[in-house]
């Protein structure tokens, strides 16, 4: 299959890649760019493990063609922290026990970021809705909801 040259901007860095057009964004992130923080599980948009942000919106990267991700700002879990400095959402996840096996965590955090950036003062019902596309089997969601609420307060203080 003919390869295409694409330019992707991921976590602020521009990458020039040569890929088959059938490659999805999650495949390119993980296989071409070595950014394995974004996970793959169902591959059909029903679990949220592959959630990344495109222009600030949460997307199922298993259903985005890498070709269609050109010209967009892509943010993955690796792009959230700055060196050792964690994003408030990450701090909150650590503090409030939102992480167990950690496999849903990257997707969960990215969904939370997209949500809090638009809804700085959420209710718990709104939080549950924001992460309703991210399956978790370990935590029962309570601590994740608590973390996102706590993060919203932290982020408000900072601004």
């Amino acid at each position, binding site marked *: 299959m003919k390869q295409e040259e694409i330019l992707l901007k991921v976590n602020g860095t521009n990458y020039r890649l040569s890929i088959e057009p059938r490659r999805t964004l999650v495949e390119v992130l*993980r296989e071409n760019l070595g*950014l*394995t*923080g*974004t*996970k*793959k*599980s*169902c*591959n*059909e948009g*029903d*679990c949220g*493990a592959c959630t990344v942000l495109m222009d600030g919106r949460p997307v199922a990267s298993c259903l985005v063609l890498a070709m269609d991700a050109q010209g967009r700002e892509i943010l*993955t*879990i*690796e792009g*959230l*922290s700055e060196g050792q400095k*964690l994003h408030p959402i*990450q701090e909150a*996840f*650590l*503090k*409030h*026990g939102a*992480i*167990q*096996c*950690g*496999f*849903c*965590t*990257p997707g969960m*955090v990215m969904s939370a970021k997209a949500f809090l950036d638009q809804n700085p003062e959420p209710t*718990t019902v709104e*939080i*549950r*809705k924001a*992460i*309703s*596309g*991210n*399956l*978790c*089997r*370990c*935590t*029962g*969601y*309570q*601590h*994740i*909801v608590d973390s996102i609420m706590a993060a919203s307060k932290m982020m408000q203080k900072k601004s």
Partner: protein
Amino acid sequence: MGEYSVVGKSVERTDGRVKVTGKAKYAGDLVAPGMLHGKLLRSPLAHAKILNVDTNRAKALPGVIGVITGKDFPGIPYGTRPDTRDQLPMPITKVHHFGEGVAAVAAMDEDTAEEALDLIKVDYEELPVVLTAEDALKPDAPLVNEFSKSNLAYFSDFNFGDIEKGFKEADYIREEKFSSQRVTVGFIEPHACLAEVDPTGRVLLQGSKQSPYITWRHMCRALDIPLSGMRIVNPFVGGAFSGKHDPFDVDFAAAKLAQITGRPVKIVLNYDEVLAAYRQRNAMDARLKIGVRKNGAITALRAECILEGGPICGIGPFNVYYFGAFLNIPYKIPAIEYHGKLVYSNRAPCGTVRGQEITLAQFALDSLLHMVAEDLHIDQVEIRTINAVTDHWRTANGMMVDVSGLPKCIEKSAEKIKWQESRKGRPKGRGIGFSCASHPSGPRLGGHFGSSVILKLVEDGKVVLTHGGTEIGQGANTVFCQMAAEVLGLPFEDIIQGVSDSDTAILDSGMFGDRCTYWDGNATILAAKDLKRQLAEIAAKELKADPEELEFKSKRIFTKGNPEKGIDFLLAVRRAYYDQGTPLYGRGYWAATDIDIVDWKTGKGNLAHGLDFIATAIELEVDKETGKVTLIKAAHGDDAGQPINPLLLEGQVNGGSTHLAGQALLEESLYDEKGRALNFTWRDYKQPTSMDAPEYVVEHVHTHDPYGPFGAKGAGEASSCSTMAAIANGVCDAVGVRIKDLPITPEKILKALKEKEAK
């Protein structure tokens, strides 16, 4: 109990940072130079002879480096028990369930591997299928497993106490049938494995496996390699819940392809494969008969159950014993008779799932207890309090309850859910359901059951802790580090979690049955004490004191009661390394050899220490027009002895409860009449989302377990065991209908409501 510095505190998980930044590596993230990608070809039939597998065209496809089938393995069956060795790495003569892997390909890239699958031609001869327990036990039923002469895979029968007398003494007797459905395990990370063979021929396996020991023993046997010929290094595991103990075709195929091609081979599944063909919880049919006195106190229990477990025994023999064994707990039952059967079938193979069979037994028992309480007009909290086991209770089948916080658990959950207030009045359609449960802290299933921990004290004063288990999310790594820090008087941050590598870590029977905190925890304490002893000797010389009189706290070693007479912890370390050239290792091994290896067929014995207790109250709402159930709040009173890390413990309680709420209300693995899976994608297999889960409140009831590390008990699975009955009972309390076959669907509720109205 006492004042602890690290134990009992909700410290941040040791692996939290790497997980929250996306740096943690799971099996699917691993790469090795020259790595090939593997894929499995799956059977479209549930039961069929394999007449021929033609792999020639696949082998000829450019980019394909190796193709294997079941015939590439030595043909040595393996199994959980010596008398239940009924599994092969990959099938040879026949396929036993839909989606069973019949061939595997390793290619230069994933696309080529997928393409190659289409070029493999398998000739099948379809066989009639066995789907239910009823099918399995018919006299002319086709035999499912080629290593067994019967579809009756295992059985367990026991009779303790005087059952006749028990029923005679009862003022009231009730008998009911219950059943539960096939469900998947539901961890989010699909199976994945990277296998390599080193230049000396040793296999290195890095997979999403829960219990390295179990994987190792089975794989070496079935690959016919010596135990020293395999090394397992565990990456992080994305959830397991007992669905990842056994090696699967994924692991075997990766290893065999690595052996054949001489290159590393990685196989990563998509989740639909997991839902179609991998571990599920067995379906259950049970009949329970209970006798109680006027005040609700139980006098006798008779139970029968059949578990339908797919084409392998697996841990099934233990499951069928466990169902009956744990009917003896958490209530005082003076006499019990139990008959359990495990049968083979052509549905997906079963292992066990979070809470094991206790979830099913408790669903039946606590539903029945609710019914009895209703009949006798006894308050639901009262009947459970009356029957709750207390300290030093010995069950009819010989299990010893050392310490029981259950009465207090019941009190607290009732308080948190506002039980009394709800009896005075509540909105229409609202109800509260109770259930209690108990889960042991690691049963002793065989002579080889034990845990070991090694502590290496590094020259800079930090400790590297390795144990033979796996961090599957439960927080095992973290609590062990907490315990080591506590014993050695070091800050939590000074204990570093080492890699789980079978070459350096030692025996651990596995991460299941709530055994980790308890067994590995005790091993950690012993390892830390071993290290402490060595350091105390050095410090004693330095301080001219008696090593027995030394205390370790805040990175110092000093004489008891006289903190100034002491030295820095680091000084003792350096004395060893730099003055004596002595490395410092702490070794700890713990096995509860004082409890019994119970005979699963006859069931008597003290199976485990550290019985933990939980009382669960769930408030829910039933929409009488649609039949839909909305979970509002769950209040758990949990006795896990001394919580080592309260935040992690609560996470376990919440998680188990949501998981089993899924089985109670939403989940079912469906099959058609030919045994083909119907809903093997997450589009149609409904696990709870954040909007399905209720709000959780967890109240810790502190007790002190005499055998547990710092008095702790295992806590991972109690809430899994109590949730289903609590939901079923809540539905009853809300709208007066009793659903006894899981899942509790809106359709069943509406049907029951109509029947009730008709009366």
